[in-house]
């Protein structure tokens, strides 16, 4: 179980391999990686994430503990970057390990759904027309609510 919040870049594949190496004996691992998206119709030149690290660590630790208990995970890790990132750069990675695939999938979805609404990061997109704060999405509240 681990939580990392940092301005430094991370290597998604290396993180998955390290996570798998620590979990010898488990059957199913799920990795979710979120990268800076750039749509042809709405190109993004940069994504800046603001963070309140003390609260982020507390919130992510609580979310990881909740997922671990609820789905009987053998391990769960959340890595979240902040600072300014370019298109295609990894922002967030969630990894879960379980004897069975269903729990690994559900655990990773749960982590992502909670993280979207409950972890203190704020996204600001920069494109050709300027910079704006990304608004919180109602669908993210809906996604979280299905676990309650």
């Amino acid at each position: 179980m681990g939580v990392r919040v940092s301005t430094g870049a991370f290597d998604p594949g290396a993180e998955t391999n390290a996570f798998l190496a620590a979990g010898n004996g488990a059957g199913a691992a799920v990795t979710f990686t979120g990268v800076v998206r750039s749509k042809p119709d709405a190109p993004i030149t940069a994504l800046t994430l603001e963070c309140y690290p003390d609260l982020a660590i507390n919130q992510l630790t609580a979310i990881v503990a909740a997922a671990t208990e609820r789905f009987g995970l053998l391990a769960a890790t959340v890595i979240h970057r902040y600072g300014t990132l370019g298109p295609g750069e990894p922002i967030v990675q969630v990894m879960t390990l379980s004897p069975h695939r269903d729990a690994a999938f559900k655990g990773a979805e749960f982590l992502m759904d909670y993280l979207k609404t409950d972890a203190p990061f704020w996204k600001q997109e920069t494109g050709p027309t300027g910079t704006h704060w990304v608004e919180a999405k109602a669908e993210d509240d809906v996604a979280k609510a299905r676990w309650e």
Partner: protein
Amino acid sequence: MKILYFAWLRERLNRGEEEVSLPPGVATVGDLIDWLASRDEAAELAFAKRSLIKAAVDAKLVNHSAPIAGASVVALFPPMTGG
């Protein structure tokens, strides 16, 4: 007491943090927001939609009815958009 601001709340208030001395009667997060909003017009505008203001007391997420007596740091911020 130290107050932290994040994202557009920080921008609209034009500060990331400040030290405040609370007047009597400011007991909860909600009271604090009311008092901060009353200080000038920019603050009144920034805090206009109370339901958009989230809070943490000493790095624990709380709601507006939470007490702030004895807290070292209160953070105020818009809805979170991580992930």
